[in-house]
């Protein structure tokens, strides 16, 4: 192998190394700030693809171009109506000014901790200045199949919402976004992920729920008994009605029958009352006499008249 070949090889290697050092690629989801010996050079590069730089002197600082997530730690916050709750929030942000972002915060980790401070603070402010219901409900939609007999029975748990969840989170977002703007960060959303009672409150809430259920159960039972009594009363009424009606009609019918019969008898027997009496009496005699009857008859009776003599 000749010296010439060796020199050529060295030059070749040098060229390749130099060439590779003067290009860089940006992914679809990346943006970058180029610094020359630590000094930022021009605008941020946001176009993905192949880019050139001065080899060795320039450094490429890459940043994410995508929507980034931010998750707050759960915060224990008292609401305006003094209910202690845990609030979990999350947000969505992105780096819109990489240069400023690079200068102020340097990396995402720093950014997140600043966001923590700012958004947590705003969340605290917002939650603390409203009643709990504002963070829970988003509208004043009336509940269906309400189990409560009256509003007073509910014991004031149903409050009207004046701003609601959406506006409350928007308020947090607007304020926080205003602050983080100077870091080259755009904060577009803050949402409440979870709201829960702190443990001590939760126990009380459970107690309240239990007593509420008991009340509903008791009402249900008593309603049942009431309805049952009503039905029994109704049954009694119906029975009495049916029976008395039947009695009345039966009396009417028998009365009519008796009356008709009486009229028929009267019409017939009225022709000759004396004969009727005679006939009925004769009919009655055999029935009035049986084997144990002793009869005393004088010979002067009509029946035995001829026993003594055949004279007329």
């Amino acid at each position, binding site marked *: 192998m000749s010296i010439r070949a060796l020199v050529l090889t060295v030059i070749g290697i040098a060229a390749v190394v130099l060439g590779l050092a003067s290009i860089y690629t940006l992914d679809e989801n990346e943006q970058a700030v180029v610094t020359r010996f630590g000094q930022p050079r021009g605008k941020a590069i946001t176009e993905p693809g192949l880019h050139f730089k001065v080899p060795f002197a320039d450094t490429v600082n890459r940043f994410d171009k995508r929507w980034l997530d931010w998750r707050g730690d759960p915060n224990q916050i008292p609401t305006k109506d003094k209910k202690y709750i845990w609030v979990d929030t999350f947000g969505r942000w992105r780096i819109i000014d990489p240069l400023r972002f690079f200068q102020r915060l340097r990396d995402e980790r720093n950014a997140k901790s600043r966001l923590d401070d700012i958004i947590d603070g705003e969340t605290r402010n917002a939650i603390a200045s409203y009643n709990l219901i504002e963070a829970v*409900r988003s509208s004043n939609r009336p509940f269906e199949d309400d189990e409560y007999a009256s509003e007073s029975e509910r014991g004031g748990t149903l409050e009207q919402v004046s701003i609601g969840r959406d506006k409350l989170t928007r308020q947090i977002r607007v304020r926080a976004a205003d602050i983080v703007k100077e870091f080259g960060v755009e904060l577009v959303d803050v949402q409440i992920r979870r709201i829960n009672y702190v443990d001590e409150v939760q126990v009380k809430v459970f107690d309240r729920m239990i007593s509420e*259920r008991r009340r509903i159960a008791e009402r*249900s039972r008593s309603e049942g008994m009431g309805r049952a009594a009503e039905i029994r009363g109704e049954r009694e009424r119906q029975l009495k009605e*049916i029976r008395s009606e039947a009695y009345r009609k039966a009396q009417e019918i028998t009365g009519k029958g008796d009356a008709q019969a009486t009229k028929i008898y009267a019409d017939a027997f009225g022709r000759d009352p004396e004969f009727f009496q005679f006939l009925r009496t004769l009919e009655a005699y055999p029935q009035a006499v049986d084997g144990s009857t002793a009869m005393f008859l004088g010979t002067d009776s009509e029946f035995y008249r001829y026993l003594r003599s055949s004279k007329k």
Partner: protein
Amino acid sequence: MAWNPQILGGPDPQKRDPEDRIRELLEKLQKGGFGRIILFFAVGVVVVTGVFTTYAQVEPDEVGVILRLGRYVGTVEPGPHFRLPFGIDQMLKVPVQRQLKAEFGFRTERVATRTTYATTDADARRESLMLTGDLNVAVVDWIVQYKIKDPYQYLFKVKNVEEMLRDISEASMRAVVGDHSVNEVLTTGRQRVATEAKLLLQELADRYETGVDIQQVVLQDVNPPDPVKPSFNEVNQAIQEKERAINEALAELNREVPRARGEAEETLRGAEGYAIEQVNRAKGEAERFIRIHDEYRKAPEVTRSRMYLDTMSKVLQRAGQKVVSDESNKGITPLLRMDGASAVPAAAAIKEQKR
């Protein structure tokens, strides 16, 4: 369930950069000796690597997203594909046809996972505990099923899409549950909660440019919190008791009223029968009387006597003891024994006569 987009054909840490490889080759070349053989070998390696990094295959349930030097150039459908070698083109495969699933409040146990179970379990519980609109607490487990509808957005618009999706799922479910009463969430409003949560979640997913299409939000177990459960059951029990009391009362009513109606009918029919009977008897007797009377009028004296005598003979036949006495011996009456078979001659005589 976390889903990791697999980046196939991307920069593989196992493989070395083309840059390194060339340097190596040149170094080997300088050493001489086997130079030529090594050179051929090196060229061979380069060619083989080139071929392998040129060809890529997209499976039927995926699409391939092509990046040229990091820049998005297009999406390809399933099938074999050729691309520029040595990592100039990258292909990211995204399973757009696959139904993906995220579980909230519970985790389907996977086989052979390590025992990080306890922590995820506690976390899962926290996921499902939520406040209802009447400031009660409900435990809601649900599933979100989704598909990737826009691979570009899915890959390049959001970092940690999966996490983001979980966050917005929780937020939208809580927003919806927060607007319903505990009773609605537990019973009647379940379907509506799921539907509204789906709409809200889709809206958020679109707003966040996740490139995800929410197919379904399915509510799994929806329960009151454990300490409260017995009292909820008590309510159900009370409702049952109520129904039972009402049903029993109705049963009693149904048992007795129709019977009473029947009995009433019976009474009425009986009364009608009685009336008809009375009338018919009256008519019959009246008719008989009229007939007899008609005949009697033709010969009253004779008929009267005949009737009297007929009756008397009948009466005397029936009577057990007959005493016929004359006016002259009226005084004996008190002496007669009045107990059945008598030894009194007069009575015997009459018996005789009777035979």
